[in-house]
């Protein structure tokens, strides 16, 4: 076999391997398996309230989300679900300065972050003996887009302080509602 055909077979094989890699099934092992980290997240994102009125909790959550600028996307009271989202500015002065400096140095424009979509997902469920308590879980996440409208970041918001603050507001609102004027 001469060098030419050897190269040709080699490159054909390479192309074949690349094509195969392109359609190979990706493993989703980590996505649908409960991990200890996921369970730890659940702890941070869940609180129990001493009430039997699950609907009232959902109503209060809806009002609270509305108070904090969210729009309700989907709800199903019978299943204890509420999802909401809001779009906000994601401009970061430090990032703009850094990207601008790099763009000038490299001569290639790097688009900085501009918009973000924040999402909230609330679930409630009766817990405890005879359903005397209601557990509320909320999850926040955000997607960030740059000035070209490209998705640059997609992240779960995992700061425990955020959740703490949400539940503090919720218990305050529930207390107020309980003492309706």
């Amino acid at each position, binding site marked *: 076999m001469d060098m030419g055909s050897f190269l040709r077979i080699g490159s054909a094989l390479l192309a074949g391997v690349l*094509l195969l890699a*392109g359609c190979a099934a*990706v493993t989703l092992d980590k996505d*649908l398996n409960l991990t200890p980290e996921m369970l730890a997240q*659940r702890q941070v994102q869940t609180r129990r309230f001493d009430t039997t009125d699950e609907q009232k909790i959902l109503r209060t959550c809806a009002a609270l989300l509305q108070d904090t600028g969210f729009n309700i996307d989907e709800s199903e009271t019978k*299943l204890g*679900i509420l999802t909401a989202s809001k779009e906000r500015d994601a401009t970061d002065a430090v990032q703009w300065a850094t990207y601008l400096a790099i763009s000038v140095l490299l001569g290639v424009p790097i688009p900085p972050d501009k918009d973000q*979509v924040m999402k909230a997902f609330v679930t409630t469920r009766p817990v405890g003996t005879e359903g005397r308590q209601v557990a509320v879980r909320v999850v926040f996440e955000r997607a960030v887009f740059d000035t070209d409208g490209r998705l640059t970041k997609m992240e*779960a918001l995992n700061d425990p302080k955020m959740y703490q603050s949400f539940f503090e507001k919720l218990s305050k609102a529930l207390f107020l509602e309980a003492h309706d004027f």
Partner: protein
Amino acid sequence: MTSDRLKRNVLLLIPLLLLLAACATTHDRLLDMDTSQVQLRSIQSRAFDTTDKEKTMRAIIATLQDLGFMLDRADYTLGVVAASKARADSMQMQVAASLRVTVTVRPRGEKQLLVRCNAEYLRSPVTDAKPYQNFFNSLEKAMFLEAHQVD
């Protein structure tokens, strides 16, 4: 070019074309029929010994939330829950939700509920058995019930 060489070149092209054909992702995607439907249905379904639809749907939603999914739709009457999850590869692909699932609940006989989960990852259906196994393992824990394989 000698005919011998030409033949060799054509022979090299054939496997490449076959590979391309294997990943063809256009026309007949509307009614995906590439895997045996019966086999796929059995991979995606499990039966639970309960008739409590509400409890089952709540367990499905709780499991999806545990797994880091965001809810897209839920309808009690239809018994449908749709959710999606962002993954690190979302950014390269420019899709906000790279892993999407639809879970349906419906009665199976008098004493059971059938739960079926369909997953889609980066715009193609998930036909592997393992991810579904993982999902039902997680769901079993939330249901406190065993998931039975059905044919």
